[in-house]
């Protein structure tokens, strides 16, 4: 099956600034895909190109197999979008704004609209000027989630939501996934991405630096090992792929590259192991690892 989103070597310049530099991004149908990167990495620019709001300078961009710049209108029937910074018309109520956005997409299920308003605890009769950032965001979320679309493009959709609403949002994304929808989720909340996403793409300065299933990506970073042995285990430090060896009381702590674990276990087995824990890297560690100075130039 062809991918829902297929971006290959996408470049985009703003004057002398190179915002996107041969970026790659690929989403299969039905997956929830995390889109990560520090501020200014080019996440929103990529999304603007995907929505046909900005034109690619070079590279190919395909949404449902078509060009989002020329076929924007047809493609938009099949997607819904939530920006991170939602600005609404000050004198229009939240309910009116939801209806406008929904009707521009071709209408939605009225029951679903009221159910979402209730779940997100949004008063639709208030004028948008009185809404907080989180409430404005809820308007865009309700409008997007109430539509029956195949793809949700979410650009930091929860940056203004409180933890309770964040939970409601996560439920909605899970329901969308269960209904077979594809979700592109750009976010800074790594815990959110970790719980929701099957695959992630990490970008930096307009380039893709990592992309794949979370479980695969974990292999790229080192696992943290903590071991207590009857005999002295410090010889492990001499093995290839073992780093940062240090002692903490009777405990030996070190980190192990993905491929080096079997050799480490082999070395430790005869040493009377009392306890052994190996913790896979968290997304946060992956993320920080990607942006640490020694990871410069690292490419998959």
């Amino acid at each position, binding site marked *: 099956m*062809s991918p829902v989103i*297929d971006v290959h070597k996408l470049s985009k310049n703003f*004057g002398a600034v190179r915002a996107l530099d041969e970026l790659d991004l690929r989403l299969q149908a039905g997956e929830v895909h995390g889109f990560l990167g520090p501020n200014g990495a080019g996440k929103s620019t990529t999304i*603007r190109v995907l*929505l*046909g*709001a*900005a*034109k690619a300078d070079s590279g190919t961009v*395909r949404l449902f*197999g*078509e*060009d989002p710049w*020329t*076929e*924007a*209108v*047809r493609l*938009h*029937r099949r*997607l*819904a*979008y939530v*920006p991170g*910074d*939602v*600005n*609404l*018309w*000050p*004198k*229009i109520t939240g309910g009116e704004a939801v209806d*406008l*956005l929904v*009707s*521009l*997409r*071709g209408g939605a299920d009225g029951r679903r609209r009221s159910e979402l308003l209730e779940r997100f605890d949004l008063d639709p009769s208030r004028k948008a*000027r009185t809404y907080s950032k989180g409430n404005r965001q809820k308007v*865009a979320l309700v409008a997007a989630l109430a539509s029956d679309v195949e793809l949700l*493009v979410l650009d930091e959709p929860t940056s203004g939501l409180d933890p309770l609403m964040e939970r409601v949002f996560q439920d909605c994304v899970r329901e969308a996934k269960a209904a077979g929808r594809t979700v592109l989720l750009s976010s800074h909340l790594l815990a959110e991405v970790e719980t929701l996403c099957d695959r992630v793409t990490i970008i930096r300065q307009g380039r893709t630096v990592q992309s794949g299933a979370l479980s695969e990506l974990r292999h790229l970073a080192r696992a943290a090992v903590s071991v207590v042995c009857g005999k002295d285990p410090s010889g492990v430090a001499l093995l290839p792929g073992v780093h940062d060896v240090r002692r903490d009381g009777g405990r030996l702590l070190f980190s192990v590259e993905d491929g080096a674990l079997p050799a480490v276990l082999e070395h430790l087995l005869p040493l009377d192991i009392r306890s052994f824990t190996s913790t896979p890297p968290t997304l946060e560690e992956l993320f920080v690892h990607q942006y640490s100075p020694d990871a410069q130039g690292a490419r998959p």
Partner: protein
Amino acid sequence: MSTEAPSRGQPDGLRGARAAGALAGTGRLFRFALLQDRLRIPLWALALGGLVGYFGAVLPLAYPDQAALQTRAAILKDPSGALLSGPGYGLENYTLGAMLANEVLGMLAVAAALMSIFLVVRHTRAEEESGRAELVRAGVVGRYAPLTAALGALLVANAAVAVILAAAMLGNGLAAADSLALAAGVAAVGLVFGAGAAVTSQLSQSARGATGLAGGALGLAYLLRGIGDAQRVGGSALSWLSPIGWSQQTRAFVDLRWWPLLPSVVLAALLCLAAYLLASRRDLGAGLLAAHPGPSRGSRALASPAGLVLRLERGSILSWCLGLFAFALLTGSMGQTIVESFEARPELAVVIGGSTGGDPLRAALSAFLRYFAMAVAVHAVVTVNRLRREEDSGRTALLLAAGAGRARLLLHCLAVTLAADAVLLLAAGFGLGAGAASAVGPDSGNLALDVTAASLAYLPLVSCFAALAALAYGLRTGSWWVWLILIASLLIGLYGPVLRLPEALLQAEPFGLVPAVPSVPLNGTPLLLMGLTALVLLAAAVPAFRRRDLSA
């Protein structure tokens, strides 16, 4: 499976569907634009209709007989009269209708153009600037839909203006065809400048920039027809370079002809076409004029609220300054011609410059200086009102949280406004004086210097209006009542003597309270009283602002 296939070798039917796709969602956005403007459009139309209805009712009282009408006609034969009104036709047998077409049409056209510029920018560039356009365009909305919806609303607004204007004139018992032509002429100018704003909205990245560019074009159009009409009675080639001139050339109520409206229709269509072409070529939110990067560090000059206001307003202050100076220079250079016409017909001096008995040139310059002071007062109110937007966007709260202090914030804004207005007054005064002096030649004495210095006599009054706007802001009432007072003052000041309004009303008109310097000697008392009034208003504004909640 190839994903490239659908974009190649499409049959014509599909390509047609794609062209229609570029307009998808237009109807919905058009209705939404009208919903947002459901008050604005009727208010503009009723205000303009009301103005015409008022003139139609009052002018017959002001000019009860043909002799009185002919005195008025004589003003239009004069270049300075033509500069500020219209080309001047049908002057041999002047009538009420001809008066409306000659003298009021230009003003109505400028108002319709402003309405149109604001409307189009509001629905196009301002939407993009706020990010709302991105949210909208993520729906099933074609690339041209927002622009088309805005142009549709433009059409509705100008049609509403035309209908109400025509109804008002018919209500005054004026000829039907000519009334329609005048109304259509006003709407035609509105359409041209609305379409122009659609183009400038593609060029500039900010709504303010787009409005400024379109407003500049409007100023130029008014200037062109002004100079053109001043060159020759009935208008000259220059008048034909201006859309306002085209509408005036329909010669409604005298010798009606419709074809001069044709160029307006063609120009509006061409401008729309240009806007569509430009819109198809750019990213959403981007402008075709590049935005330059600014300094990466805040200078010392920025380290106070005053510094910030100055930085935010400097572009606007500069354009006002240049605009007022250019207009004043031009008006001033007509001074010599005016004097000559006064020598030929002394009764004119009374109408245009007031009877001061002194040097007629100085009398006329004093009157013109008053008009420019009115423009500066408008600038003062506009600038102080910007505080509202700053507060609504949350930026004021940011400054206050950084320790700026409410009184300091308000006073700094006012100080910058008044300093800028002093500069604007001086620029207008110098323009008038220098223009007149250059026309008179070497025996002008220190005319330029006198008029320049005299301009500052209006600063206390301008301060009053700034302080009044500050009070309205401090109380956070609407700013409408400040505008009402200012516009009433302007209208009474401009048209009061002509309309023979009650003497008591004319006496109380604020701009009339300022001594007509340099024509009459300076009397400090009214200026001192105005300065005190400004201080009192300000003393009320500061605690009012301190006491209330911030809006955001």
